[in-house]
């Protein structure tokens, strides 16, 4: 129970900070809308509907990168990461809370982005939504971990996409598969496996990334 209340308090703090700053979510929404418009003009007329389904995943990953890049910025600017590490809670709680807060923003952005995609490209199925929901977990788990790593390096934001994209390729494959085939079960199962595997790994390894 104690661990959960730690996670709850940390998640509340992250959500509150981001809501007060009011910059991440509007930026994500504008970004994803702009990306959809760019996609419309990048797809030549007459290209298949499947191509648009694939591009949805590009939009999701890049929008998530936007949120992930911001996730550790307040900690860095106000130098609160040291305080968090010193706090009497398990360090993995910091990762879990940050992942949950990022997930909340990503889901909020997708609640707008997915209907917008349907409006622009008409290709949204139930399996796509299920795939997006499962992929979100993996994106936030791995992305938060990578974000925490990138923030301790000299290169900072430069490194985040470089570290994140190779790790996200299996998610893209699973997500696109779930969006375009008729029996998406295998792909959804694969996404769930990815989430489980990498969430466990991140949860166990996070304490080695943040040291005082």
């Amino acid at each position: 129970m104690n661990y959960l209340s730690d996670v709850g308090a940390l998640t509340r703090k992250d959500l509150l900070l981001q809501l007060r700053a009011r910059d991440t979510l509007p930026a994500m929404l504008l970004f994803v809308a702009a990306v959809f418009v760019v996609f419309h003009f990048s797809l030549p007329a007459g290209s298949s509907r499947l191509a648009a389904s694939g591009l949805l995943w590009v939009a999701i990953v890049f929008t998530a990168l936007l949120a992930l890049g911001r996730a550790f910025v307040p900690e860095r600017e106000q130098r609160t990461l040291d305080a968090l590490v010193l706090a009497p809670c398990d360090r993995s709680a910091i990762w879990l809370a940050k992942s949950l807060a990022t997930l909340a923003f990503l889901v909020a952005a997708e609640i707008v982005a997915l209907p917008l995609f349907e409006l622009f490209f008409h290709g949204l199925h139930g399996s796509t939504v299920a795939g997006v929901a499962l992929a979100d977990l993996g994106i936030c788990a791995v992305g938060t971990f990578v974000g925490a790593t990138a923030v301790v390096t000299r290169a900072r934001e430069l490194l985040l996409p470089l570290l994140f994209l190779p790790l996200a390729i299996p998610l893209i494959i699973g997500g696109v598969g779930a969006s375009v085939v008729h029996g998406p079960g295998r792909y959804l199962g694969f996404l769930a496996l990815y989430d489980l595997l990498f969430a466990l790994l991140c949860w166990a390894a996070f304490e080695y990334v943040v040291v005082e």
Partner: protein
Amino acid sequence: MRRIPLPVLAAAALVLVTLALALVFFVVPNDADQGFSQRIFYFHVSIAFTAYLCFGAGAWKALRHLWKRDPRADLESYVAVHQGVIFGVLVLLTGSIWAKISWGHWWVWSENQLVLFLVLFLFYAAYFMLRFSVDPGPQRANISAVYALFGVVLVPVSFLAIRLSQSLIHPQVFTRHGPNFGGWILAAYIVSQVAVLVLAYTLYRVELAGKLLDLRLRELRLA
């Protein structure tokens, strides 16, 4: 455990690689299907296996660093991953050459192993950027170790994903059921495999020795 001296290793690598080249080019018969170009496979497959082994060794040393706090494990893990990337690039090059000769294109997305190596190359290239973006010390060692461990999880997951995507995006047209594996062909493969492994281990030891010397020199300068 006493280690084999480096000159002996280097000599063994030279002899084995020469023997493997001789077997592959002069002894093994031409492949019925693909002819002369199939011979690249003795090296392509051996190098790929060696690269996986290097990544595995890097992750194993990383685990030893995180778990037992073995002081040399960080450097050993880094060197193993470095060798893995070098051999991984060779896999991409040999695979490309083979693809060009077989299908007329330098890159084919239908070859699972090649695509996997491309993903791994991107991942481990980022590993180096990460490592050299943190000042030397316990934090760099920890972060590098965690990434090396991520790598060994990424290998099977990516492999599975790429296998899945094959059935989706590309029909499985090319299967690799070449000749029946036996006689000289098997012997040539085994010799090439051992030769590349010994070569990789020699390179690993050379690089490790150099890095340790460099470290020692730096310590002496500071002292």
